[in-house]
C-alpha cells in the first residue's frame, strides 16, 4: 500500500506543476526539481511525474529529465521501466544529439531492467552514420561492461569496439581505444569462468571477453599511431596509454614507436606531454642505439621545462613526475637547474618540490648559484620552506664534496641571523656534515656551542649533543656543556636523553680523568629516573661494558662510522620502474604503487606486501653475500654480543634471521626484517633529511612502534615516519626486552639483523653509542 503523498509543501506544488497542461510551467518545474537536487534535496518522490515529461521536443528539458533519471533511477528501480519506451524511441531520433543523449543516459542507469532493452539500440548506435553518436556509443560499451559484462560478450560489443579502432573519425577511434582499455582493466578483475571451447559453441553466459580482443597487433598499432596525430588532445592521451601497454615485437618497433610519439612533446596539453614521456620511457628500454637514446632524452628536456610555466597544480604534477624521471635518468635536465628556482609567489607545495629537484640537479658547476638561491630562500617567511631550504644546503654539502666548505660557510652565515628555527635547522644539518666529513670543520664548533641556549627542539638539541660527544676531546668545556643537559635530563625528550647519555659516555672514554662523576650521574639518572625502556637499556649496556671491559667499550662506542651519502632514489628500484611505467598517474604523483592507495581492503594490502617482498628478497640475498665478505672485519665487534648471540662471522642472511628468532621475536617480526632489508631503508635511517615528505597520506608507521629503532638511529627520531610505506605498514612491534638481549631486540628494528655481521653496518650500529 503506497503512502499517499502529502498534499502540501514544495514537492506537492512541484508535482502539480509537473503535471500542468502548460508546457512552460512544466519546463519551469523541472528546472526547479534539478535546482533542488543541486542543493542536495532529495527529489526521488517526484519520479513518476518527472518521467512523464521525458517526451518533449525541448532539448534542454530532455537533458534535465535525463539528468534526473541518472540520479534517481537507482532509488526507483521498478519505475524506471516507465522510461524505457521513450529511451528506445530517442535512440532512433533523427537528431544525432538526441540519439547520443539517449544511449549515453540509458547505459549509465544502474537498473537491470533497462539494460535488457539496451542491447539492440546500442548495436545500432555503434554503427550509426553520425560519428558523434558512434563516439558516444563506444564509451557506452565500457559502461555496460561495468554493469553487466556478460551482455557485452553476448552481443559482441567488444568486437565491435575493436572494429571502431579503424573508424574514419579520430574522436571515435579515441573513445573506442579508451573504452577497450577500460574494459581490459575491468576484465582482469573478473573471476575466470570455467574454460569453454573458446568462442565457438556459445558457452554458458561468460562475463569474460576473449582476451585476444585486447591484444594490439601490428596493423592496430599502425592505426593507433596514425590516429595519434589527428585526435583531440584527450584522445591522444587514451592512445598513448594504450601504446604504453603495448609490448613491442623487437627493437625496431620500439624505435618506431618512440619516433612516432616524440612529436607529441610539442602538444600544449600537459597530460599529452607526460603521456608521451611515459610511452618513450617504456619503449626506450628496448632501444640500444646510442644516438637515438641521446636524441630522445635531449628532446625530452625542453617540454618538461615548459611544464614548469603551467598553472601551479599542473606544475606540481609535472614536478612530482620529473622528480621520478630524474631518479632514473639524472642527466635529462642536468643543465636546467635554474628553471626550478622558486618564484616568490609559488604555492608552498610547488616550492618544496622544486627544492628537492634542485638538490637532485646540483653539481660542481652550478653549486654556487644554487647556494645563493638557497640562502635567499632561508630569509623568507614560510617557516617550513625556510627549514627545507636550510636542509637543502646540507644535502648539497653531502652530495658534492668540493662544495662542502662553501655550504658550511652558508650555514654559518645563517646561524648568524640568530633566527631560532634557522639556527636549529642549521645545527641539525651540520651534524650530518660532520658525519660525512669527520674532522674537517671542527673550527665551527665553538660557534655552534655558543648557540646552545637558542636550541629548544629535541632534534636540534640531540644533534648538538652528538657533535659535542663526538669531539669531546677537542672541546675544553665539554663536561660543562654536557653537564647543563644532564641537569635537565628528566625533562628532556627521549632522543635528547639518549644522546646525552651516549655523549657523556664518549666523553668519559676520551677523558676518563675529568668525567668520572658526570658519567656516574648520567648512568644513575638514566637507569633510575627514566621512563623510557630504551634509555634504560642503553644505560645498562654502557654500564656493564664500562665496568667489565673498558677496551671493548672503547672499540664499540668510539667506532668509526661509515660515511653517509645522498640516496639516488627515494623508492626501491623495482618500484621506481613500476612508477615510471605509470608516469602522469596518481601513483607517479604520490610516488607509491597504485595498490597502496586504492582501496581494495585486505586484498590490496596482501598484494602490496607480496610485491614489496619480491624485489627485496634479492637484496637480502645480495646482502648475505656481502656479509660473508665483510665477516672478518667485524670480529672484534662481535665480542660485544658474545653473551647472547652465537658467532656467525660468516653467517648468511637466513641464518641471522633464525638467530633473531631465538631472541624470542615473533615470526612476523622476522618477516619485517626481511622486508626492510631494502637498502633504501638503510639510507633513510642514516640520512633522513633526504627523505621525501610523502604528499598525501602519512605513512602508517606510528612513532610508538619504532621505539626500538630510536635507540640505534643516529640521532633523528622522526626518520621512521618517512619510511617507505612498506616498512611502515606493519609496526615493528617487538617490545623492549631486558638488558640481556636488548641488543637483539634493537637490531631487527635497525632493519638488518644480518647487517650486524657486516663491517660497515656494524660500525654504524654501534657507533651511535
Amino acid at each position: 500500500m503506497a503512502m499517499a503523498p502529502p498534499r502540501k509543501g514544495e514537492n506537492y506544488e512541484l508535482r502539480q506543476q509537473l503535471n500542468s497542461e502548460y508546457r512552460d510551467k512544466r519546463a519551469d518545474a523541472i528546472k526547479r526539481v534539478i535546482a533542488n537536487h543541486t542543493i542536495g534535496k532529495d527529489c526521488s518522490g517526484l519520479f513518476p511525474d518527472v518521467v512523464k515529461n521525458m517526451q518533449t521536443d525541448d532539448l534542454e528539458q530532455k537533458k534535465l529529465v535525463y539528468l534526473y533519471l541518472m540520479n534517481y533511477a537507482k532509488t526507483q528501480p521498478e519505475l524506471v521501466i516507465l522510461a524505457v519506451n521513450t529511451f528506445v524511441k530517442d535512440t532512433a531520433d533523427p537528431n544525432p544529439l538526441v540519439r547520443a543523449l539517449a544511449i549515453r543516459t540509458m547505459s549509465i542507469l544502474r537498473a537491470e531492467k533497462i539494460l535488457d532493452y539496451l542491447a539492440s539500440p546500442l548495436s545500432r548506435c555503434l554503427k550509426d552514420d553520425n560519428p558523434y553518436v558512434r563516439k558516444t556509443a563506444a564509451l557506452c560499451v565500457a559502461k555496460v561492461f561495468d554493469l553487466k559484462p556478460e551482455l557485452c560478450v553476448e552481443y559482441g560489443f567488444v568486437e565491435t569496439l575493436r572494429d571502431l579502432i579503424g573508424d574514419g573519425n579520430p574522436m571515435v577511434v579515441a573513445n573506442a581505444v579508451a573504452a577497450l582499455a577500460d574494459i581490459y582493466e575491468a576484465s582482469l578483475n573478473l573471476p575466470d569462468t570455467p574454460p569453454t571451447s573458446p568462442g565457438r559453441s556459445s558457452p554458458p553466459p561468460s562475463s569474460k571477453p576473449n582476451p585476444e580482443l585486447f591484444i594490439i597487433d601490428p596493423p592496430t598499432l599502425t592505426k593507433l599511431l596514425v590516429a595519434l596525430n589527428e585526435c583531440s588532445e584527450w584522445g591522444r592521451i587514451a592512445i598513448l596509454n594504450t601504446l604504453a601497454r603495448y609490448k613491442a615485437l623487437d627493437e625496431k618497433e620500439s624505435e618506431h614507436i618512440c619516433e612516432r610519439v616524440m612529436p607529441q612533446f610539442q602538444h600544449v596539453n600537459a597530460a599529452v606531454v607526460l603521456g608521451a614521456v611515459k610511452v618513450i620511457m617504456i619503449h626506450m628500454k628496448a632501444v640500444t642505439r646510442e644516438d637515438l637514446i641521446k636524441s630522445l632524452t635531449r628532446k625530452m628536456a625542453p617540454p618538461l621545462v615548459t611544464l614548469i610555466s603551467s598553472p601551479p597544480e599542473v606544475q606540481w604534477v609535472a614536478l612530482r613526475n620529473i622528480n621520478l624521471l630524474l631518479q632514473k635518468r639524472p642527466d635529462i635536465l642536468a643543465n636546467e637547474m635554474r628553471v626550478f628556482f622558486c618564484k616568490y609567489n609559488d604555492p608552498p607545495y610547488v616550492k618544496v618540490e622544486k627544492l628537492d629537484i634542485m638538490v637532485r640537479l646540483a653539481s660542481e658547476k652550478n653549486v654556487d648559484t644554487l647556494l645563493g638561491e638557497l640562502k635567499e630562500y632561508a630569509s623568507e617567511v614560510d617557516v617550513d620552506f625556510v627549514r627545507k631550504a636550510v636542509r637543502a644546503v646540507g644535502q648539497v654539502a653531502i652530495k658534492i664534496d668540493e662544495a662542502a666548505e662553501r655550504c658550511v660557510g652558508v650555514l654559518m652565515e645563517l646561524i648568524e641571523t640568530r633566527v631560532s628555527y634557522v639556527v636549529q635547522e642549521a645545527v641539525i644539518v651540520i651534524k650530518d656534515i660532520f658525519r660525512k666529513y669527520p674532522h674537517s670543520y671542527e673550527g665551527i664548533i665553538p660557534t655552534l656551542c655558543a648557540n646552545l641556549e637558542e636550541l629548544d627542539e629535541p632534534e636540534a638539541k640531540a644533534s648538538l649533543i652528538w657533535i659535542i660527544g663526538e669531539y669531546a676531546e677537542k672541546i675544553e668545556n665539554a663536561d660543562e656543556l654536557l653537564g647543563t643537559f644532564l641537569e635537565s635530563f628528566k625533562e628532556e625528550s627521549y632522543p635528547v636523553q639518549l644522546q646525552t647519555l651516549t655523549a657523556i659516555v664518549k666523553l668519559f672514554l676520551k677523558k676518563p680523568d675529568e668525567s668520572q662523576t658526570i658519567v656516574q650521574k648520567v648512568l644513575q639518572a638514566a637507569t633510575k629516573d627514566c621512563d623510557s625502556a630504551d634509555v634504560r637499556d642503553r644505560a645498562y649496556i654502557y654500564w656493564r661494558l664500562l665496568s667489565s671491559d673498558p677496551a671493548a667499550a672503547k672499540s664499540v662506542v668510539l667506532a668509526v662510522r661509515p660515511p653517509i651519502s645522498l640516496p639516488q632514489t627515494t623508492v626501491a628500484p623495482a618500484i621506481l620502474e613500476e612508477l615510471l611505467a605509470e608516469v602522469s598517474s596518481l601513483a607517479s604523483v604520490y610516488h607509491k604503487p597504485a595498490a597502496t592507495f586504492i582501496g581494495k581492503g585486505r586484498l590490496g594490502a596482501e598484494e602490496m606486501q607480496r610485491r614489496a617482498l619480491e624485489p627485496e628478497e634479492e637484496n637480502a640475498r645480495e646482502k648475505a653475500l656481502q656479509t660473508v665478505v665483510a665477516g672478518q672485519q667485524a670480529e672484534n665487534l662481535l665480542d660485544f654480543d658474545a653473551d647472547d648471540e652465537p658467532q656467525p662471522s660468516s653467517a648468511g642472511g637466513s641464518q641471522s634471521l633464525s638467530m633473531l628468532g631465538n631472541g624470542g621475536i615473533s615470526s612476523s617480526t622476522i618477516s619485517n626484517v626481511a622486508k626492510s632489508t631494502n637498502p633504501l631503508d638503510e639510507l633513510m635511517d642514516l640520512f633522513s633529511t633526504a627523505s621525501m615528505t610523502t604528499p598525501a597520506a602519512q605513512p602508517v608507521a606510528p612513532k610508538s612502534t619504532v621505539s626500538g629503532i630510536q635507540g640505534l638511529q643516529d640521532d633523528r627520531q622522526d626518520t621512521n615516519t618517512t619510511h617507505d610505506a612498506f616498512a611502515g605498514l606493519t609496526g615493528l612491534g617487538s617490545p623492549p626486552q631486558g638488558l640481556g638481549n636488548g641488543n637483539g631486540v634493537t637490531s631487527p628494528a635497525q632493519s638488518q639483523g644480518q647487517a650486524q655481521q657486516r663491517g660497515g653496518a656494524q660500525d654504524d650500529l654501534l657507533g651511535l653509542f
Partner: protein
Amino acid sequence: MDSVADLSGNLTVAILDVKGKSLIQRSYRDDVPPSYIERFLPLVLEMEEENVQVTPCFSDEGINYMHIRHNNLYLLALSKRNSNAAEVIFFLHRLCSVLTEYFKELEEESIRDNFVIIYELLDEMMDFGFPQTTESKILQEYITQESHKLEVQARPPMAVTNAVSWRSEGIRYRKNEVFLDVVESINLLVNASGNVIRSEILGAVKMKCYLTGMPELRLGLNDKVMFEATGRGARGKSFEMEDVKFHQCVRLSRFENDRTISFIPPDGEFELMSYRLSTPVKPLVYVEASVENHRGSRVEYMVKVRGQFKRKSTANNVEIFVPVPDDADSPKFRTSVGSVVYAPEKSAFVWKIKQLGGGRDYMMRAHFGLPSVRNDEIDKRAPISVNFEIPYFTVSGIQVRYLKIVEKSGYQMPWVRYIARNGDDYVLRTISDAKSSSIIAPL
C-alpha cells in the same frame, strides 16, 4: 556484480565554495556519496592544522581528491582508481576556462544562476570519466544560454566529430582577414648585486582568423633550425625556439619532419603556438631601490628605473611594485615622472609611468611612517616586480616571414604586431640597505 562495482573506479567532478559546500556536482561513474565531497575541505583543514603540506592531489581512505583553486572556488575531482592525475588536473583547468568564457566571471553566483547550462557542459565535456569536447568555441555552437527547441534547430554538433574537431564547416566571411600578434613575456630574476640569475622568454603567437571555409594555412618564421636545414643560414637573422607548443590544429608530425607549421585554424581568436627560450636576457626595465630603515619611526626609499632597450622604443604602462613593511603608514612620494600610489593590500607602493623611453632613467623617493611599537617579526623580503609593455619589439628576434593560405594564391601579408612585455615573474631583488651616511636626501 557486486565485486565489479567495488573494483570499478569512479570519477566525480564538483565545484565547491570557499566553505567546502558543493555548488554543483556531476558523477560520471557510479555514485560517490556526497559525503565524500563534503569531506574535502575538512580534510584540507586538518592537514593544514597538522602542518602537512596540502597538495593538489591527495588520497584519504581510498578516495583520491584532485583539486585546483579558482578565486574562491575549489574545482574538485574524486576518484577511486589510479587516475591520470595530469589529465584530471588539466581537465579541471580546462573546465574552469570554459566556464569563465561562458559566464565572464566564474564565481559562486554565476554557478548558481547557470546550473542548467553547467550540467549540460559537464555532460558534453566528460563522459564516463573520459574528457570529450573541451573547446569552448565548439561547445558554444550547440550549448547556448537560450534554450532551443528541437523543431527550430535540429543541430547535429558537426564540429565535435569532424576530422577537424576545432572548426565547423560552412563559415563565411565577406572580408577575409587574419591578424597575428607575437607576444613575448619575459620572466627574469635579478639578484641583489644586479646580476640576472634566471631568465626566460615565453613567446606566444596569437591569431585572429576571419576566413571562409576550411582554409589550409602555412606560417613561416625565421626558424633557425629550418634555415640551417635548408641552407639559408646566411640570410637574415634567425631565432631558435627551445621548446614549442602548438594548438592542436597544427600538424605535429609535419613540424617534426620539416619544421613546417601547417594547420586549419579554428575560427576567431586563438593561440596558435607558444615557445620558450632560456637565452640570457638583460632586464629591459631595470629597477633598483635603496632603503633607509629607521626602525620605529620611518622608512625611506629611493628608487631608480632605467629603460635598457633601444632609444627608438618605448615601454608603455610601466608599473613598478616596491615592497614596504606591512605596517607602514602616511606615505609621501616625490617623483619627476609618472605617479605613485600606495597599495597597502599588496604591502607595496606602485610607481606608474605611462611611457618610459629607451635609454632613459628616472628616480623617485618615498617616505613612510612606521609605528613605534613593532612586532619583532623578520621582514619579508619580497622582491621588486615590474609590469611593462614594449610594442614593436621582441627579445628573441622572431619574425613572421609569411602566412600562406594554401589553396588561394595572392593573399597578402597578415597584420602582424609584435610586443614584448613582462611575464608573471619579472622580479628584481635589488633592494639594498642604504648605508648610514644617507644617500637618500630627506624629502
